[in-house]
């Protein structure tokens, strides 16, 4: 390959970028699908929304791959869970994505976990304990009340980033708040039979859901967060059920169902798959569907 051929190839690569410089809608980079769905509620067609992960991926495990770097580069606002859920790849995107709009402290940087009270903040940190999150349990999307806090802050940030459409964001926020309040009331009424029900978690993924609905966790299949359970630990949990029985085993759609199914078979209680986030199961295309299906699954197993 000659030097001029090499330079020619570089120019060829640069061409498409020169052609796509036209200004488009305000771009939102969401780390998880639930925040992408929330941005859809607040911004509608005024936003171009990119979700870095899908419901079938573990948001703790993905890599800072080329498409994420490209999406990060173009975004005007970032909305993520935070609390170190994205610690493996978000810092890498920050360094490689060359985007001054997405920096902590700027209006374009929104970590929802910084807005809410975190549960399970560890007393001591030791990696022998598995995937320990120093800032607390990051799976905050299982309590619908968190979306009210997040929506309010997101609308405020969008108005800062894109003042021309501030009115639209405010109107859509008010509309969402009205519908969401009504939905929460209805869900809480439906969920009354679940209060006080003892359950088993496959992963420590549902503390916020339990607090909201008053479910009681009696055991976890994973002895250490993020590390698949051993046969010995499953046996211990099974033994424990004799003195502290549970009604069901809950696992997230993106997780390996085998440990939960093994326990269901041996303990004679149902294993319940929960969508966990938007797109996790059929009927969960938006935030309302996410909680509808979650309640459907829980109530069906409880009756």
């Amino acid at each position, binding site marked *: *390959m000659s*030097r001029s051929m*090499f330079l020619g*190839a*570089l120019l060829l*690569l*640069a061409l*498409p*970028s020169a052609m*796509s*410089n036209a200004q488009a809608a305000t771009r939102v980079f969401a780390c998880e699908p639930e925040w992408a769905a929330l941005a859809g509620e607040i911004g509608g067609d005024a936003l171009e929304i990119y979700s870095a*992960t*899908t419901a*079938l*991926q*573990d948001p703790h*495990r*993905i*890599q*800072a*791959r*080329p*498409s994420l*770097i*490209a*999406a990060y*580069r*173009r975004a005007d606002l970032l909305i993520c869970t*935070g*609390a*170190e859920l994205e*610690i*493996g*790849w978000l*810092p*890498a995107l*920050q*360094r*490689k*994505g*060359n*985007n*001054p709009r997405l*920096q902590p*402290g700027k209006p374009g940087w929104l970590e929802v976990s910084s807005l809410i009270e975190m549960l399970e903040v560890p007393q001591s*940190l030791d*990696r022998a304990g*598995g995937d320990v999150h*120093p*800032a607390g349990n990051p799976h905050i999307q299982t309590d619908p009340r968190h979306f009210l806090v997040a929506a309010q802050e997101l609308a405020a940030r969008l108005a800062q980033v894109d003042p021309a459409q501030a009115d639209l964001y405010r109107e859509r926020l008010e509309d969402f708040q009205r519908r969401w309040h009504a939905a929460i009331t209805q869900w809480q009424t439906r969920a009354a039979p679940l209060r006080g029900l003892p359950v088993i978690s496959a992963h420590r993924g549902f503390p916020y859901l339990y607090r909201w609905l008053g479910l009681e966790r009696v055991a976890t299949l994973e002895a250490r967060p993020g*590390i*698949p359970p051993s046969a010995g630990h499953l046996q211990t949990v099974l033994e424990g059920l004799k003195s502290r029985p549970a009604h069901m085993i809950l696992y997230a759609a*993106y997780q*390996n169902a085998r440990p939960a199914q093994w326990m269901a078979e041996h303990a004679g209680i149902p294993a319940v798959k929960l969508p966990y986030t938007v797109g996790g199961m059929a009927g969960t295309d938006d935030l309302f569907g996410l909680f509808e299906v979650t309640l459907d699954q829980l109530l069906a197993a409880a009756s």
Partner: protein
Amino acid sequence: MNHFAYVALAGALMASSPLLAAPATKSFNPKISLIMSAQYADYSAGSEAEVAGVALGPETELKPEGMALGEAELVLEANIDQHFHGWSTIALENEDGETVVAVEEAYIDTLAMPAGLALKFGRFLSDIGYHNRQHAHAWDFVDAPLAYRSLLANRYADDGLQVRWLAPTPVLLELGAEVMRGDGFPAGGEARSGIKAWTAFAHLGGDVGNGGAWRLGLGYLDADALDRRSGEEQELGFSGSSTLRLLDAVYKWAPAGDARERNFSFQAGYLQRRESGELSDDPDGADQRSNYTGSQDAYYLQAVYQFMRGWRLGLRYDRLSTDNQLDNPAPDTTLATVANAAGETPRRSSLMLDYSPSEFSRLRLQYNRDASRPGGEKDDQLLLQASFSLGAHPAHQF
């Protein structure tokens, strides 16, 4: 101070750091990690590990036979302020029974430049190739591809300035260039001023299908060498110009993009080095000189498959060919090694199995069928490696 004293020192540093006592994101302290490896190596061939047709650069010798503590690397990293991010890698190595401390990388990069631009300055691994940018502990095999080992002394790192531009496109398009001091192999030389090496690179990448991601890279390195040392005893000096062209491709896949249980990655690289200038061989002051025109082409192909959580199986193939012209291939000198390789094709096949109980530890077994020595001498190489990372959470680089 020996290795263990450094390890203890770093351990004490981490234990006293608030990093582990408070949420890392809520503290202003740097992320600290100490990366250690221990290994066992066995080689069936007893001869020097030369490669036909090239004089190997510094620090390219095989890992010592038997049990050995590998390199220990101390990494410190933090956002310095709203504009800068800093990274340093301090390596502690064993060299002839002595512990050597080396600043492998120490650089600052910008976080808030406009228009998709970023600058990096200090000492860093060049972005000319996908494998060049990876730290040794992130490699998929115990050793570097033969192409990198032979033509770049494992990787090209130097002191300099890098500028990168990221296009505002849905597909990743990154263009960059570096101007360098010219100290790192294949540049090299003492007491010089100015810019003695420069690079240019382009990266293109995106997603494909359900759970696939790819990246193509193109790199160019133009280096000026003044008495650059290479060879077993660093007895060979080279003065002249060295250029390198590089093409690589990476493809990764996981079911629905979820890599926890199963995933696959494929990597291929092609390196082409052209050199012209003068070689001098002076092991004992007996100086032999030769005009030299060098042409070396090398490629590697590798595939790694994670077949169940934590367990990965890898295959790699390396090949090199050379066509060098020397007007004085003095017998029994490194000049002859470089000259007399026409028709030889140094190559190597590798098989790797590793197990990672967590993101912080890994055990690896590797077998190389090596035929890279002059004359095609075969070497069965068995390598066992344990790597550990203490401290901060590692980044999931693509």
